[in-house]
């Protein structure tokens, strides 16, 4: 025990650990927004959208533009936060209608390669539109400072993100389990052919689901924009982490994304304390273990 406390002096520091838990939860929140969209799209369309991290990046960049464009008022941030994800949803809709719709019947690997190619296309378009320099989004003034939590400083903005987390999760749950649209989505993940045979316009549902998933990714990017440098590499970073979340939780599982996003958020938050340089390796180690023990993830169903 003494060697442990010597190695990790923070381990006896209860408040610090609690703050770390909270910051892990807020990281998990961003991850949840991205990965639940990815998982949702996979559940319905059976396409693993590797460009999901790119949509997240577009959300963050749209935030940059909107903040710069809107008048500098307190409400501008919130309006931008509303509009940026909608813009990403439109981008997602275009991608679905123009490209994905043409390849639903094709080999899954071709679909995977296509979404992989989309990463390059979107990445370059972002570079052309916004340029190579890193951008930043200021936090709204009211949330710019930090508050004391258990005697430790904690950024107010993260606190708001934390408060949003249960709202979003409950909202999504209500959509999935208490609306007709959510019922259709759940039905589509079980048996798409049967759903079509019963007279549901599956093709429209695909577009809607893809747009909704893109909206979630855009919301994640827009919310994260004030906490990170908005830069060109963020698509790859987010993709890999969200991908770890989805694989651990199980592709196509709502509960899986939630649990695993929080788990991964915590792991990242504490990984940085324990092994600062290689915290991401911890993630992939966890993923490898999960894949070996349960190849389809904690909450997933076996591949068809």
């Amino acid at each position, binding site marked *: 025990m003494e060697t442990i406390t010597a190695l990790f002096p923070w381990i006896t520091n209860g408040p610090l650990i609690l703050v770390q838990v909270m910051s892990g939860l807020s990281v998990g929140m961003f991850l949840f927004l991205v990965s639940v969209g990815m998982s949702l799209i996979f559940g319905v369309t059976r396409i*693993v959208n*590797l460009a999901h991290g790119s949509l997240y990046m577009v959300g963050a960049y749209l935030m940059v533009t909107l903040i710069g464009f809107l008048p500098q008022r307190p409400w501008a941030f919130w309006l931008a936060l509303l509009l940026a994800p909608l813009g990403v949803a439109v981008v997602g809709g275009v991608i679905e209608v123009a*490209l994905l719709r*043409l*390849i639903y019947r*094709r*080999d*899954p*690997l*071709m679909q*995977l*390669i*296509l979404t*992989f*190619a*989309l*990463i*390059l*296309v979107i*990445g*370059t*378009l972002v*570079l*052309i539109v916004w340029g190579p320099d890193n951008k930043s989004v200021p936090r709204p003034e009211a949330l710019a400072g930090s508050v004391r939590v258990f005697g430790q400083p904690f950024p107010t903005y993260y606190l708001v993100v934390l408060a949003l987390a249960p709202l979003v999760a409950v909202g999504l749950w209500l959509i999935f389990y208490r609306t007709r649209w959510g019922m259709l989505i759940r039905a589509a993940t079980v048996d798409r052919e049967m759903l079509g045979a019963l007279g549901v316009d599956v093709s429209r549902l695909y577009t809607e689901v893809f747009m909704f998933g893109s909206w979630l990714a855009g919301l994640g990017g827009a919310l994260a924009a004030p906490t990170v440098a908005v830069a060109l590499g963020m698509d*790859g970073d987010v993709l*890999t982490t969200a*991908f*770890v979340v989805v*694989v651990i939780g199980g592709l196509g599982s709502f509960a899986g994304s939630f649990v695993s996003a929080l788990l991964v958020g915590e792991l990242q938050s504490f990984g940085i304390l324990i092994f600062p*340089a*290689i915290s*991401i*390796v911890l993630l*992939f180690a966890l*993923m*490898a273990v999960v*894949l*070996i023990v349960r*190849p389809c993830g904690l909450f997933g169903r076996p*591949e068809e």
Partner: protein
Amino acid sequence: MRTAVPRWLVPLVAGIIVVALPLVLPGFFVILLTEIAIVGLFATAFNLLMGFGGMVSFGHAAYFALGAYAAALLVKRAQVPMLLALPAAPLVAAAGALVFGFFIVRLTRTYFAMLSLAFAQIVFTVIFKWTSLTGGDNGLLNVWPPEPLKSPRAYYYFTIVIVGLSLLALHAVVHSPFGYALCAVRENPRRARFIGVNVRRHQLLAFVLSGFFSGLAGGLFAFFNGSVFPDFAYFTKSFEPLVVALLGGVQSFFGPLAGAVGFKILETYIARQWPVYWPLFLGAAVIAVIVLLPKGFVGLVEGRAWRRRLVVHK
């Protein structure tokens, strides 16, 4: 009619062209040809998995980068001579492929592709973050080959010999009992298992072999480029062998090599004129091929005709 040409004629003519070209072409093309050879080896190694094993890796840049960094680090940090450092490239890459592949081959198709991508991101992150060893974002500079190999022409011949031997080895692998068993695994893993093929072991061995030659390509590229960068492990680099193999044709052993010629010539002219637009062009080209020309590389998996040809056509 293919049969009209004697079997030995094509390799002979190809060999003469390969040896003679640098003597008549200006230096710029010699450099281009060297790069084509290296990319061709990388894509052929990749295609051992995709075309023959039916396993699509999205993270092959990892093994390329492991090879490149292994060779560069030995030269830079341990002052090992280049000719001793180069063999370390495929060995280190193969070791990495063994460790990662052990987990990756447990999965199939989509999950296989994604786990390979994830491992490649680990390699990228480690290279990027471990600044004291790898130089991080700045990479490792001045890893040129020693004097007799320093000129582009000399390095070209050096590369050609190594790539040629590697292609012969890969060709032998594909047409060995192991290669046929690998095709059987691709066609129908369950049947392969029933007739006594250890599916995972075959897949893992193919993965390690593919990693080995990808690493060799990486090592050759390190000395060709004179420097190594974390980009070598980035996922856009993993896209390269995939595109090259797809464009050239995964149906045949030499398809990726032909793809490398076309790809590099395109890249040289497009990427030099509009470097910013190159990834856009690359991505758009792949999307166009997939969407508009579904028969362009007749269903990697959907059409079965080419597979039969692949097995019968020796």
